[in-house]
């Protein structure tokens, strides 16, 4: 389906247009799924430690929920924020349903994720310059794993999902001011944990 000309036609459409088309014909929902499946898949992976199979189940549940709620999508909101919000809630629901055997918000970052956190460096203290290097990927994971969930998720959204403050506000349903505060606190907590566990390394 991805390679055919029909897909290319849908590829250029806006999210809102695809939402409208999906409501007219459920087959069109496929193109909306294709647009977001990888992003949401990685989001789930970063926040859970479930198996690939279970991750796909969560992803499927998310898209079913999105489909059910298509009429409730507010066009004033970015569709991506809306779908991430549903994903965020669904991950939490999934965690509550399977509490005994799962660990939501546990860390599941691949090396690529860790390297992408280098944006975290650019607007903050030098400590991150020491930490975020290819050699230190494990240390980064270690520090992130020690962060409280609320801080970890917000850092993921900001630096791995590359969301703006307003988008994070829409995803987590928190005021933008609170998002900014949380990000700052998350950074300083990150720094504190790194220092406390002697995770800083020298460049030399």
């Amino acid at each position, binding site marked *: *389906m991805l390679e055919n000309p029909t897909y290319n036609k849908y590829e250029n459409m806006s999210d809102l247009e695809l939402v409208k088309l999906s*409501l007219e014909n*459920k*087959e069109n*929902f*496929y193109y909306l*799924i*294709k647009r977001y*499946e990888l992003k949401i*898949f990685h989001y789930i992976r970063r926040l859970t430690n479930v198996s*690939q199979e279970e991750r*796909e189940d969560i*992803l*499927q549940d998310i*898209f*079913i929920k999105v*489909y*059910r*709620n*298509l*009429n*409730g999508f*507010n066009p004033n909101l970015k569709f991506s924020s809306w779908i991430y919000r549903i994903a965020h809630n669904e991950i939490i629901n999934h965690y509550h349903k399977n509490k005994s055997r799962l660990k939501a918000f546990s860390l599941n970052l691949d090396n690529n994720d860790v390297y992408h956190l280098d944006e975290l460096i650019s607007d903050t203290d030098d400590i991150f310059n020491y930490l975020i290097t290819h050699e230190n990927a494990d240390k980064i994971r270690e520090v992130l794993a020690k962060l409280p969930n609320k801080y970890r998720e917000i850092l993921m959204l900001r630096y791995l999902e590359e969301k703006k403050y307003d988008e994070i*506000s829409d995803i987590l*349903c*928190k*005021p*933008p*001011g*609170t998002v900014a505060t949380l990000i700052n606190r998350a950074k300083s907590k990150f720094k504190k944990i790194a220092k406390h566990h002697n995770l800083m390394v020298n460049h030399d």
Partner: protein
Amino acid sequence: MTDIGKNVLQKIKKEKIQPFSKKHFFLKKSFIWTLFGLSILLGIIASSVTIFQLKHTDWELYDRSNYSLFEFLAMAIPYFWLIFLMIFIGIAYNYFRRTEKGYRYNTLLIITISVIVSIIGGIGVYQTGFSEKLEAVFQENIPVYRMINRGRHRMWMSPEQGFLAGEIKEINSAQEIELIDLHGNNWIIDISNAFWRGRLRSEVGLEIKIIGKIKVEGQFVANEIRPLHGRLRRGRGRRLRSNRWNETP
């Protein structure tokens, strides 16, 4: 990774999953806004009775009483309505956060605006006299409320300090009435030189507060007489018989 899109579409078709209708979302939004509005309205009412009770606290008697400022304030604060006000503001905040864009606003801002709206609305409702009527209904019908409110009249249960309150039981003459106090004790009140506040006149069943002094055991000389609750509220004979001040909820 399996073709999630295909799987999702198969599930949608197999289980005949349909998107919720626009009406469903409209009703959901309306329900949230209605509950928010209702909470604000109830907060306004709670605020209006709070204002009524504060306004009818005898602040000027603080100097004449032997109570410390803390004790006096502890008696004067209308806890019952303040707690209700806080509960309704909390509920209103909760529902506002659930509205489409409610989460974007700062908690402090939402609560501050809710409090301001409740106070302004409360002043408006107080001026209509509704708060006084509502307070009377609670006083009349809810024993727990009477018990909580009794603390507010504690000052008026100290005849040795010159403060007495209760319900007129009998009018013996233009100079003398019989009163059953808040503890259920009987008093003969000398009203010959008493100043009656406002348009208050002696009447059986009327609940009053008296400033004066003890003459002898069971007799009190009144200097000033005020209505017990707000302006004019008459008690009923049946309440005298039930000795309602001593009842427990």
